[in-house]
């Protein structure tokens, strides 16, 4: 297979953002037809930038690209698509209110809708895929949306397929199926690029593995025979200990901070998104709720934090925070009861901060009453800001700088600093680690465990990241189709297969 023709060859790619953030520093990267080539690296190592350059979304400052041996210069995605490159983005590039077939049609040059339909049928047959072409994309589950995304490329006849962290939205069986398909497509003659930071997947699927670190390529190795530890060392660059939680805590006598009883919630379309949900979080406890996206965790978090009152309707049940009934309260109403909860939202780096405002203004967000009721006590806030920047090791040019000039990691640190430092009795966290690099995740876990231990904070952690949940949680529940089931492990420790099974609806 190593003798196959080169599909992609990128030479000495360099890209600098702003003044001096070197995202790619002289990277060489090539892919052959018939292989799965993995691009491995931490978040921020430069994988996404490299692929954006290849796809014409970003222009490189230096370097050359060859497709099928011909030099190319892609100024926009449409150039790249014409050049035979297909990319499956992390966030799907689909138009939700159009049907599967209409979305496919949009990507093709063919004008006659009838022809597109027959072509689509042929591709589905050839690649052994089954999907309802007349369904609207927004009604499909995430893994089928991903399939639509891929089918779009196959209908277009793209021979080069790039997958940007495709497994991040999948679980268990779905991951295995995708990896199997990737291998099959490579065998059918496609050149497949698989971008990931997950070691197991890369080891399983990669014919070759290129490792990026800090914008540089540190290695390109054959997939067969490479050791897992060796790969980790290449990727992280130093010895690296994963943080594990400490001793079992006895929480049975601790006070219940959050109590959810028989909660049922309907969405705007009058469908149940939560059904008869009951659980509680005690002082000092980290309670995790695991689940695949779209099983009601959005509604659960929104209804507890009161952050999206329009879109949901409580039909039954009760939520109590610190003994006060907050059922159906908006966040501002909760605050008016003189109780408070910390909240780290999903996509935190975008919605947890107001990016056009300054760092100091963002430290004020949600903590309003701490710094005055009518007038803002800037002096107090400044002092506090200095402490937080120091303690949480946030690198900012100044407290006046706009948050939009900060990196994703530092934005998240601002949110962590603000929410963790507010010393609320309850902290709600939803999918915190998207967009964080490994070190930031460890930093986050450490802070979380300290908070539960030293401050007795009750923490509700909702995530689909099982590694994270296993590392920090005292107890776990699983959310599936609007129901939260407590997880009782067979022997006291968390079991990946048992949880995955529950998350996908098995017993």
């Amino acid at each position: 297979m190593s003798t196959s023709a080169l599909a992609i060859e990128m030479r000495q790619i360099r890209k600098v953002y702003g003044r001096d953030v070197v995202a790619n520093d002289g990277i060489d990267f090539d892919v052959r037809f018939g292989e799965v080539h993995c691009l491995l690296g931490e978040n921020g190592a430069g994988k996404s930038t490299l692929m954006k350059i290849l796809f014409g979304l970003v222009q490189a400052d230096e370097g050359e690209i060859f497709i099928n041996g011909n030099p190319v210069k892609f100024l926009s995605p449409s150039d790249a698509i014409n050049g035979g490159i297909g990319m499956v983005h992390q966030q799907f590039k689909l138009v939700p209110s159009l049907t599967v077939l209409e979305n496919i049609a949009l990507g093709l040059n063919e004008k006659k809708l009838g022809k597109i339909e027959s072509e689509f049928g042929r591709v589905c047959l050839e690649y052994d895929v089954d999907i309802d072409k007349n369904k609207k994309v927004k009604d499909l589950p995430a893994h089928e949306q991903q399939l639509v995304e891929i089918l779009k490329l196959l209908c277009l006849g793209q021979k080069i397929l790039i997958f940007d962290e495709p497994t991040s939205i999948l679980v268990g069986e779905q991951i295995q199926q995708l990896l199997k398909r990737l291998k099959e497509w490579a065998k059918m003659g496609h050149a497949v690029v698989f971008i990931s930071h997950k070691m197991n997947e890369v080891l399983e699927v990669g014919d070759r593995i290129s490792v990026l670190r800090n914008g540089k390529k540190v290695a390109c190795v054959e997939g067969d025979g490479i050791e897992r530890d060796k790969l980790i060392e290449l990727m992280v660059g130093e010895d690296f200990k994963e943080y594990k939680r400490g001793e079992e805590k006895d929480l049975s006598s601790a006070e219940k901070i959050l109590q959810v009883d028989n909660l049922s919630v309907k969405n705007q379309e009058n469908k149940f998104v939560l059904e008869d949900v009951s659980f509680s979080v005690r002082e000092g406890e980290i309670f995790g709720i695991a689940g695949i996206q779209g099983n009601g965790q959005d509604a659960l978090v929104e209804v507890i934090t009161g952050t999206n009152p329009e879109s949901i309707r409580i039909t039954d049940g009760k939520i109590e925070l610190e003994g006060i009934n907050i059922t159906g309260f908006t966040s501002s109403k909760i605050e008016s009861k003189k109780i408070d909860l910390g909240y780290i939202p999903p996509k935190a780096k975008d919605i947890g901060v107001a990016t056009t405002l300054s760092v100091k203004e963002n430290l004020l967000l949600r903590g309003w009453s701490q710094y005055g009721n009518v007038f803002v006590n800037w002096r107090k806030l400044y002092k506090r800001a200095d402490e937080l920047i120091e303690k949480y090791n946030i690198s900012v040019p100044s407290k006046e700088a706009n948050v939009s000039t900060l990196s994703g990691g530092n934005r998240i640190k601002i949110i962590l600093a603000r929410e963790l430092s507010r010393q609320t009795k309850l902290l709600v966290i939803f999918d915190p680690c998207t967009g964080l690099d490994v070190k930031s995740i460890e930093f986050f876990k450490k802070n979380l465990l300290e908070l539960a231990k030293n401050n007795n904070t009750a923490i509700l952690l909702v995530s689909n990241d099982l590694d994270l949940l296993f590392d920090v949680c005292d107890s776990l529940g699983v959310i599936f189709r609007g129901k939260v089931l407590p997880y009782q492990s067979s022997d006291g420790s968390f079991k990946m297969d048992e949880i995955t099974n529950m998350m996908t609806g098995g017993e």
Partner: protein
Amino acid sequence: MDLNLFISLLVRTISLGTPIALVGLGEGFSQKAGPLNLGIIGYLSLGAYVSWVMAYRLQNPWIATIMAMLAAGLLAAFVAFLVVTLNLSQIVVGVGVAFFAEGLVCLLTFIAWPNYLIPTSFNVGVFRTAGIPILREIPFIGEVLFGHHLFVYLMVGIAFLLHYIVNKTKFGLKLRAVGESTAASDAMGINVARIRYIVIIVSGMLCGLAASYMTLVRARAYVLGITGGVGFLALAAIVLGAWKSPRIVLAALLFGFVRSLHFLGQAQRWINIPSEVWQMLPYIVAIIVLMISSIRIGAEAPPELARTYIREDEA
């Protein structure tokens, strides 16, 4: 109310509704792909001026109409450059262009006719005949349906044409996709800028047509500010019409009807109702319409309406 009065009320409804419909159709087409043009007010003023000055110079209303469409389209192309290529705020540019065009038209009118001695229809080649021969002789129906100028039927044709383009063609599919999710469309290789240029220019040209209708067909006269109000009502008609061409036409006719009530009030000598009430009535109706529409069809507005699209260029 006697029959004659009723007929002329209907005729007025159509003739007052037609320019609102033309503007609404073009602008609705544009909004379907995202761009909001508050500049339509400016395109209309410019179109009205160009149509009159050209009809005066060339004595040919057809050429004058085409010139008005080209001029308004050109101004729209300038707007497209600002909001699509330079990514400036559509709302601010819209207000700016409306202002710019208004002042420019004052100046151009001054240049064409110093001291604003604007020629009347005696000296200007306006459209003089209207209606479809023979059919317009049919009592009642003939007058209401077939007595109008060709532009009215053209407007209906344009409505169906745009409806077909949006819903049945590949271009329409792309247009809807851009208005629904620009980032996704861009990643699919759709040329977002090209589509937005096209729809903005179409919106401008239809404003030129509407303005020409107002000066050369309806009023057969030109004064500064003749197009006032039409643009605003068209914006409301689009919301009421839920961004669907045939419904926009019906909504525009509703506003034409409300505007023609002024005439009814005068004819019936309802002197207790001051004329200002008739003048503000269309806008009161417009606000009520916006309220009703938002309850019923609020979700149907194109999600990318009035949003600037800047391709993400971050690591």
